[in-house]
């Protein structure tokens, strides 16, 4: 049995790649297929994958705010809340902070290096 973490990742990959909502059943079949395609022991794991496990994974992802359920239909169809790129952008925004002004960074940097330092830097960066 693959760990829940790995399954979460696999499910998100499918949802991000698929662009449209999918039921737990569909997702299970796709997961079984993709692991079967890899062959060997992985294929065996895929066959054992129960729909309830997929539902568990989906509800965990829902709690984390990564997937949402379409309410009206039965069985429920799931889709990713936002794209892979948006999530990456969210992380990068956290890391880089609320965008310290790049121009200001550069201006300050250039203002603070001496001429000889700038010369050394130019050489290092391949402008020699």
């Amino acid at each position, binding site marked *: 049995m693959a760990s829940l*973490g790995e399954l*979460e*990742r696999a499910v*998100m990959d499918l949802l991000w790649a698929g662009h449209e909502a999918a039921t737990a059943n569909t997702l299970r079949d796709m997961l079984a297929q993709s692991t079967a395609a890899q062959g060997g022991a992985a294929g065996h794991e895929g066959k054992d994958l129960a729909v309830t496990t997929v539902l568990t994974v989906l509800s965990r992802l829902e709690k*984390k705010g*990564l997937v949402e359920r379409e309410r009206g239909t039965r069985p429920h169809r799931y889709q990713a809340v936002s794209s*892979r790129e948006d*999530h*990456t952008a*969210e*992380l*990068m925004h*956290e*890391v*880089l*902070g*609320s965008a*310290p002004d*790049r121009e*200001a*960074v*550069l*201006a*300050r*940097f*250039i203002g*603070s*290096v*001496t001429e*000889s*330092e*700038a010369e*050394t*830097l*130019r050489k*290092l*960066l*391949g402008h020699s």
Partner: protein
Amino acid sequence: MFWTSYFLAVLAIVLAWPVPILLSRAHWPARDPFTAMLLWQVIGLAGGLSMIGAMLVYGLEPVGDNLIAGLQALAGMVLYNAPTTSLGFWHLFALSAAALLTAHLVFTLLLTYFKIERQRRRHRELLTLLASPSADGTGTVVINHDSPVAYCLPGGARSVTVLSDGLMAALEPAELRAVLIHENAHLNQRHHLLLWAFAAWRQALPWLPTTRLAQEAVNSLIEMLADDVALRTESKATLIKAIAIVASGSAVPQAAPVLGPAGLPGAGLQLPDGAGSGSASTTASRVSRLLSPRPPLPAALRATVVGVCVLLLAMPTALLIVPGLLG
């Protein structure tokens, strides 16, 4: 007792205002980031201690000759309803202020901790879905992003260093190694704890401008410390190039006198909360200390600073505790 409170108050004011301003303007910290780091920690710690101590000592003055006797008398009043008539209005005011300030500092420290923890957990959750393990070793993952970005996410055994595709593409192997060593140095030297403490300090006393100075100085000093670790194995040119590429945001800097037009500051972001992100001055001082290195601090001067650190910590503690032990 009386003079102790005045002395502590003066010490608190000196540590809260002129000393951090002077230190933030000094040039020697770039020559010895470790000692400077020590001094900033001591300033914060001794500053807080003397602030609280001054009020405590003043408030307890009528009921005890020293802090320990005073605290015993206070415990009697609080727990056993001993008469409080010996305390005047201002004594009670000072005692309440000391209690409130202590609670405020501790509470802010905890609050900041949980805030950072929550953000990191969320960040780690997303990383496990978005990033793939890198070939460079365990604890390193690669995320799909064009800007050259490198940072580490502290979390005990689950600490992870994150590199972007853009970074991998822009850097030569040696430069990449330098960046990885730099990030690992942040993790090994537990820089996130320093960032946490100083972020909390600033959060707790936002009206005190020197808490901002302290945080900025610490942000920049930890980058220098991590750079120094990278310099042990990688050449200076490699490291400077790596920093410049990350700061310029592209592999081939075009136009502009020195660097490319876009600049993502800092190769060494360590806290995903923005507080740790390298600022313009940080990148500038990092590169310029590598480009025109100055000799390390003379041993005598270094010993003096360490001595001052010990004294600063020992003084408020001694003034508060020793009279009680002697008497």
